[in-house]
């Protein structure tokens, strides 16, 4: 076996059994690994009758053929499950070291089923795989849990949940290497519902390659690209992802006060430059990553990781807060409690607007930096109002009679790019199959950063094609598994050649993108089977009706014409259902029969 290890680990927590199975090579080349393979397996294992927090849901933790090979950013893994926040197909992925180590323990993926009768943790070492009692760990935070289980990034890597996962917060994260998060959509709550506290891995098996010499050449050429690109070689290492804060704000696409405005007067105070000047200790990198965008920061509460752009925005501009220390401390807390910072910040912003509009009784108001930390704690432990916030912004706003004030798509809170100033971004959010997400395609690159070339951010005609291409590409990156940031500099043709030299299976660039399209359509079928319809492919009314401010003043999202073009371009009917010819072309026709024909 080249590229893949060929081994799947299956853990049944109800039965307490651990088995291995060979990787299904009928499907692996079609869905690659990570998110793609996860979605394919989820299709078989978790149907519409399954409650996401029931023992019948599964957690699929998957690497890809590129993981642990040493290719730039080949450290990542993916967690697939049915989301307790959105009810959609979900994958969340994370970097660090754990994914690399799991692959080097000798597995492509693991499927975790059932629910343990009491808290347990899983240990995978060269000596074997075993379940252990975790009663003494239950209730402990992420850093402490990781330390108690012997976290050592170069040898023994810990993946775990914090109190938020244990308490079934709908946007709880699965954390690894203490500070990295697979967070969006709440996979941590699924892990918590299974009474699984942690997974510890050790191992050092090397990945076998079909053509090592060619692989090294592709890697060498990719190095040139990463060194030459100013974002990957300068901007991200020096300022982190928050380097885009001032850029996005300048064009009037920075959602502010729960998307009531699109320009934040104090953006500079929470920008990458401000982080570098005030709290940054150093930058750091995941395994095999030359970019090193991670921020190691220090505040009065100690040293920790963050804030990323999305986090600085979620607790910052979205909440009308410009106190970088308070934002960073909230970030540190989310890491330690195991929670998605985007959903946490955006849900708090929603509560602030509900309160200011008299729909909710609370102290939360825009700008109340002093309440951030306590509110984050309350969410994780479901204390007081925190119990409502732990359900996410949509359920919160709906409960108080104003679901339209939840800035979410399919109940997943949107991140830090306002669709009114980036038309393609709106279509991306509306059609994203895990809800309002910026990692399902990279419109920032083409609409703002000019990668590979700048397109008009207000243009509507033709925008669907860009969204589709970037969605398909993102599906591939999540399946290889590689970081989205490598693709800022390293184009798909490099990835196709790397995959070919790893696996010995010829993937042209076109084949690779076609695999991404296959994955996207499968995820669409999954959501259709769950009962999602065209009506769910939309944006909060605010973005369709209330004009932007700042550099995008006067613009609203022109979603409808883009959506119609999108469905046609995808080969879907007017209801957003893939047509038989498209499914045939993508080798999905057999799976689709039950969705298309009932």
């Amino acid at each position: 076996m080249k590229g893949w290890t060929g081994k799947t680990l299956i853990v049944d927590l109800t039965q307490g059994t651990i088995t291995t199975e060979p990787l299904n090579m009928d499907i692996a080349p079609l869905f690659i690994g990570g998110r793609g393979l996860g979605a394919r397996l989820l299709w078989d294992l978790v149907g519409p009758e399954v409650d996401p927090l029931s023992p019948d849901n599964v957690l699929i933790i998957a690497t890809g053929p590129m993981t642990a090979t040493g290719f730039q950013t080949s450290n990542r893994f993916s967690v697939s499950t049915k989301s307790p926040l959105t009810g959609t197909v979900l994958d969340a992925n994370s970097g660090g070291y754990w994914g690399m180590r799991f692959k080097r323990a000798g597995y492509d993926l693991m499927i975790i089923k059932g629910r343990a009768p009491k808290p347990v943790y899983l240990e995978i070492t060269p000596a074997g795989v075993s379940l252990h009692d975790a009663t003494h760990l239950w209730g402990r935070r992420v850093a402490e849990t990781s330390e108690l289980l012997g976290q050592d990034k170069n040898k023994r890597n810990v993946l775990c949940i914090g109190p938020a996962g244990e308490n079934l917060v709908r946007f709880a994260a699965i954390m690894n290497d203490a500070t990295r998060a697979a967070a969006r959509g709440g996979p941590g709550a699924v892990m918590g519902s299974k009474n699984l506290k942690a997974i510890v891995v050790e191992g050092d098996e090397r990945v076998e390659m079909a053509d090592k010499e060619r692989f090294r050449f592709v890697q060498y050429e990719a190095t040139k690209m990463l060194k030459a690109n100013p974002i990957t070689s300068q901007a991200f290492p020096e300022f982190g992802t928050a380097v885009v804060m001032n850029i996005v704000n300048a064009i009037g696409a920075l959602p502010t006060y729960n998307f009531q405005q699109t320009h934040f007067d104090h953006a500079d105070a929470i920008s990458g430059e401000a982080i570098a000047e005030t709290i940054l200790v150093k930058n750091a990198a995941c395994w095999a990553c030359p970019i090193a965008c991670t921020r190691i920061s220090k505040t009065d509460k100690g040293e920790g990781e963050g804030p990323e752009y999305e986090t600085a925005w979620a607790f910052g501009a979205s909440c009308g807060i410009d106190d970088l220390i308070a934002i960073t401390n909230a970030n540190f807390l989310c890491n330690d409690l195991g929670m998605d910072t985007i959903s946490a910040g955006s849900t708090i912003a929603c509560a602030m607007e509900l309160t200011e509009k008299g729909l909710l009784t609370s102290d939360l108001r825009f700008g109340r930096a002093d309440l951030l930390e306590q509110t984050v704690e309350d969410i994780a432990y479901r204390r007081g109002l925190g119990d409502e916030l732990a359900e996410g912004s949509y359920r919160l706003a709906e409960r108080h009679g104003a679901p339209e004030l939840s800035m979410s798509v399919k109940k997943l809170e949107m991140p830090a790019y306002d669709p009114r100033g980036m038309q393609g971004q709106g279509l991306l959010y509306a059609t994203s199959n895990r809800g309002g997400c910026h990692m399902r395609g990279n419109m920032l690159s083409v609409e703002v950063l000019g990668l590979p070339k700048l397109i008009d951010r207000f243009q509507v005609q033709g925008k669907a094609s860009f969204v589709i291409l970037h969605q398909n590409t993102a599906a591939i990156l999540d399946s290889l598994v590689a970081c989205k940031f490598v693709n800022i500099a390293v184009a798909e043709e490099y990835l196709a050649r790397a995959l070919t030299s790893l696996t010995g299976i010829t993937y042209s660039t076109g084949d690779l993108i076609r695999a991404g399209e296959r994955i996207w359509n499968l995820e669409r079928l999954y959501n259709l089977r769950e009962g999602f319809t065209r009506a769910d492919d939309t944006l909060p009314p605010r973005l369709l009706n209330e004009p932007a401010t700042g550099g995008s003043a006067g613009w609203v999202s022109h979603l409808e014409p883009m959506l119609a073009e999108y469905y046609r371009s995808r080969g879907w009917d007017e209801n957003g259902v893939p047509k038989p010819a498209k499914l045939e072309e993508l080798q999905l026709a057999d799976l689709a029969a039950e969705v298309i024909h009932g």
Partner: protein
Amino acid sequence: MVDERVYEMFREIGRDMYVHNLVSSHGGNISVRFGDRIIIKRRGAMLGRLKPHDLIETGLEKNDSGVALASTELIVHRAIYKATPALAVVHAHPRVAIALSLSRDEIVPIDNEGSYLLKKVPVVSVEFASGTKQMADTLAEALKSYKIVFLRGHGSFAIGQTLDEAFQWTDALEEAAQIIMYAKYLNEEMIEYRRMSDSYSSW
């Protein structure tokens, strides 16, 4: 109705291609894909002097009246869009590259920029090298793996997300071809400055 921004893009790229000697007065063609639609240069229009009415919209798969007006290479553009992730296609007649294509099966740049951007440009041959299905299928298949491919004796076909990206590959190829030609004229031993340069042929 084609957006004004789209016309401006066509006009600028078309003009640049002519100014850069990548096409003769009426040669070459360019297109973009908008979902299930293609916007392509009008048959017989001059790339260097495109007017709004020189942009023809037609179906990616389905024929309509647009096919009566579109470039003769429409069949090739359609095949490329169906087989690859391309959102733009640039077809040019770069002169030095054409000359090189007459004697080799691949053009491997020796300059830094060409090596960095292109690695290798394959040269393909077909019997009927203008507007045929054989030509369309051959080019589309090659462009699944390469962002720019050369049709022997005819010209280049480049793909990208945008016209300017596909234009960049085209212009870089012609620059690389000229440097190969100059180096050949000089007829001096080349001092290799690129690590792993032997591998470019395997790209």
